[in-house]
């Protein structure tokens, strides 16, 4: 199989999986086996591409021109590889989890659920492998629309309202700002290709380019930079597997990935350093980090707390991009992976509590740790990663981000990272601590008869928790990929 074919095949596989879901809808077991198989196959193909990328190749697939000069094109480069690896690995794992969750929770319309789930992965892979801004935008919007039925899965009044916020904010930012910035880029640079070192340098005055940067950063609504973050908590109305994969991994990571990709391949680090708005945007991200953590504090609903924690963590990556130095970009890129594994573990655990104990509120989880030790143990590990403590993967990305702030000489931003970690320490660890060490309320029997979540879900939780720890000991893969991305030569820096 040629390299180009391999890319096309990888992006199409989830679609094939989706078709399989439709065809096999009569027998749920076969249907789920179909998605699982497609998921594993997709991951396998992504590994094939990873091998090529590690060799220093940039596999490329050019389809046709949409309008003259603007083709649909895929190009696999190291940064995209990071995102694709994360999304394609976690898809089958989440499917495994979803099987237990959807059945345990007696959700309706499961076929539609698994169908759009698979389609959304195709969208995420399309974003990851896009070779120019147009292709990126195409799949970015595709992802918005095909996740809408997932977010509004319950079709209740609340789901409808949340769906409005979701679609409204994501489209308003992407059409209003991002598309404008893309067309502007096309007008200035005469190309929308992603290139090492960027395409915008020298095409217009610093003032104009600074404005375009702001349009891009706010235009990527999926990165949930405040004040365009409201869609993320709204989307938590979805079933937990959706929140887990799409709103901790695929959708939000597509957003921050886009920011990183634009920073590295459209502006280029050197140009970013000269723009006035780069540090403004870094501080906007810093503000989101702190505010997001503070709001997370106030939430008693576990999923809502995790949502605000996600908002806060996403801005770490935006911050990494806006530090405009290699360390920052490396840290940001690694954080895509590290945060994904940590946060998905947390969501899995939250969903497991919902299925097994029907509890959403943290204040009512006292003592639950004794009946569900695996779930809350995994939650503890995930929390460590998000806070950035060893032995969890999150400590590496935080380390590099911290280095980045030092390199740029912005001690204030380093302080923001520290404060945010401290806040995280409290609002995340509160959950397992209360579950393990607090006594259930006197005279209440509502924990009786509660067991761990369904087996498939439990397996998924263990896999992601174990991976979170493994990432601490073996982070080289991500580090090497990100080094390749920033050095731009295709060679691994020594």
């Amino acid at each position, binding site marked *: 199989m040629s390299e180009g074919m391999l890319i096309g095949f990888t992006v199409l596989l989830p679609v094939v999986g989706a078709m399989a879901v439709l065809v096999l809808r009569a027998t749920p077991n076969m249907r789920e086996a179909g998605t699982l198989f497609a998921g594993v196959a997709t991951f396998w193909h992504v590994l094939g591409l990873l091998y090529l990328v590690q060799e220093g190749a940039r596999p490329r697939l050019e389809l*046709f*021109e*949409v*309008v*003259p000069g*603007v083709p*649909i094109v895929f190009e696999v480069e190291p940064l995209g590889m990071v995102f694709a690896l994360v999304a394609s690995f976690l898809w089958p794992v989440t499917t495994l989890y979803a099987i237990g969750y959807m059945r345990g929770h007696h959700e309706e319309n499961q076929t539609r659920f698994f169908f759009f789930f698979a389609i959304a992965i195709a969208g995420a892979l399309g974003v990851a492998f896009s070779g120019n801004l*147009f292709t990126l*935008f*195409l799949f970015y*919007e*595709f992802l918005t*629309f095909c996740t809408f039925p997932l977010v*509004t899965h319950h*079709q209740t009044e609340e*789901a*409808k309202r949340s*769906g*409005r916020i979701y*679609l*409204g904010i994501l*489209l*308003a930012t992407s*059409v*209003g700002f991002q*598309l*404008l910035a893309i*067309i*502007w880029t*096309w*007008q200035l640079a005469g190309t929308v290709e992603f290139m090492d070192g960027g395409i915008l340098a020298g095409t217009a005055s610093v003032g104009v380019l600074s404005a375009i940067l702001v349009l891009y950063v706010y235009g990527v609504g999926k990165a949930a930079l405040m004040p365009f973050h409201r869609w993320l908590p709204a989307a938590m109305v979805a079933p937990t597997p959706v929140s887990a994969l799409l709103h901790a991994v695929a959708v939000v990571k597509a957003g921050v990935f886009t920011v990183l990709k634009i920073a590295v391949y459209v502006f280029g680090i050197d140009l970013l350093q000269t723009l006035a708005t780069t540090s403004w945007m870094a501080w906007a991200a810093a503000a989101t980090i702190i505010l997001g953590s503070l709001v997370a504090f106030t939430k008693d609903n576990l999923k809502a707390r995790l949502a605000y924690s996600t908002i806060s963590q996403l801005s770490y990556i935006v911050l990494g991009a806006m530090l405009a130095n290699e360390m920052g970009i490396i840290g940001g890129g690694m954080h895509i992976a590290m945060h994904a594994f940590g946060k998905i573990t947390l969501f899995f655990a939250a969903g497991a509590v919902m299925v097994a104990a029907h509890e959403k509120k943290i204040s009512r989880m006292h003592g639950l740790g004794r009946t569900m030790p695996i779930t809350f143990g995994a939650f503890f590990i995930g929390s460590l990663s998000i806070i950035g403590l060893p032995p969890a993967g999150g400590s590496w990305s935080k380390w590099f981000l911290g280095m980045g702030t030092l390199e740029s000489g912005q001690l204030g931003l380093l302080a923001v990272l520290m404060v945010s970690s401290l806040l995280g320490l409290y609002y995340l660890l509160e959950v397992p601590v209360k579950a393990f060490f607090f006594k259930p309320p006197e005279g209440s029997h509502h924990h009786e008869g509660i067991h761990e979540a369904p087996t498939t879900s439990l397996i998924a939780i263990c896999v992601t928790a174990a991976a979170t720890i493994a990432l601490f000991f073996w982070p080289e893969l991500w580090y090497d990929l990100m080094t390749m991305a920033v050095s731009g030569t295709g060679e691994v820096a020594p």
Partner: protein
Amino acid sequence: MSEHLPALLVVVPLLLAPVAALVGRWKVAWAVAAAACWWTLYASVSLLQRIRVEGPISYELGGWVPPYGIEYRIDLVSIFVAIIVAAIGAVTIPYARTSIAKEVEEDRGPLFYAAFLLCLSGLLGISVTGDVFNVFVFLEISSLSAYSMIALGKDRRALTASFQYLIMGSVGASFIVIGIGLMYVMTGTLNMADLAVRLPEVADNRTIPVAFTFLTVGITLKLALFPLHLWLPNAYTYAPSAVTAFIASTATKVSVYLLLRFFFTIFGETFSYEAMQLDMVLMPLSIVAILAMSLVAIYQANVKRLLAFSSVAQIGYMVLGISFGSVLGVTAGIIHLFNHALMKGALFMAMGCVMYSVGSVRIEKMAGLGKRMPWTMAAFVGGGLSLIGVPATVGFVSKWYLVQAALEQGSWAIAGVVMVGSLMALIYVWKVVEVAYFQEPDPDHEIREAPLSLLLPTWALVAASFYFGIDASLTADVATQAAETLIGGIQ
């Protein structure tokens, strides 16, 4: 025969119209009309191929040498519009068979097909003729037949809608003929190419600006530019579904073509934009059209009416592109002619399916249709995405060019208006989607999916609106070349 193709393109549907009326049988009349529609599509496509190879075609009607006789002059712009008209006609006619049978009194069927063919031939005539008086004649043919088709709607309000359109349309046509008359008085010619040569000689005379003004008002009335759009919403709402789909995708488009013809080919860009400062009129009006009419669309309870207001807003996009007076702007306008025809055709056809099965297109009657009529509503969503301008749909391609044209002029704010317009489209499209997919269907009311004969044409247009959104190189090339010919004048 192929050398007479330019004339036959117009004459065949014109002559088959009385045949359709006289055969008296519903199905035979339909067969005659269908044959004529499909033939014109074939003829216009083969003309396009000829023009792309050989350049513009000049055809002397009756062998009279222009400028004395009537000349049919077909260049890339004309054939582009003719293909839109013929293609929409060819897709509408199989749709009409089922839809019209339900929505029009049975004994009027043959009359409907006769009027349909007359309208088709009038619209094709406008796009291929090179003679301004001939333009007026065809305009009247197409308009009169359109009035009668609208009046065929079973809803009695169709009569007032048609009457309103008749009055407004006739005012517009009179303005146009006055403009043409004034030009004739000054130059003694009616041939477009000849006018283009002679007009500059007399341009200092005040008569010419007056003629220009009459023509501008007349044509903008016909193409329903805000605030001269008042006839349009009622006409689109109460006409039979197939008629709405056809007229919405063709009649206003042909009027936009006329605008291009008069401003660029006949008066010339310099006169229109520098002496007359046309952009100062068109630009603000089209911006208001985009914003105000989208806003009005949001508040409509009848989905056909909603789409009608959306059409007025979309016409604003076309005119906005043209008002830039640049190659990029005119390209954007021309591309949107085609793209809007596809998406609005698809949307109105989807509404026709709803009309067929539900008997109403009021928004509250569409509760639960996502489940009951999945294919129809999926088509609506598809067309709606295009209206919003999501990438991989034709709407996106239009937006891409239009925003580029705005940025080229350095007008940030106008680029912003285009974006705001698409977000407003999101609101009014999603309003329908939410009702169809989030509300439970009425259990007492049995609703079935529309028949295939309605769904297939609808989906043909939806598919086209995705196809030309993913691979727009053909439309973009043709539109760019067309814009260059227009701005470069007649070669």
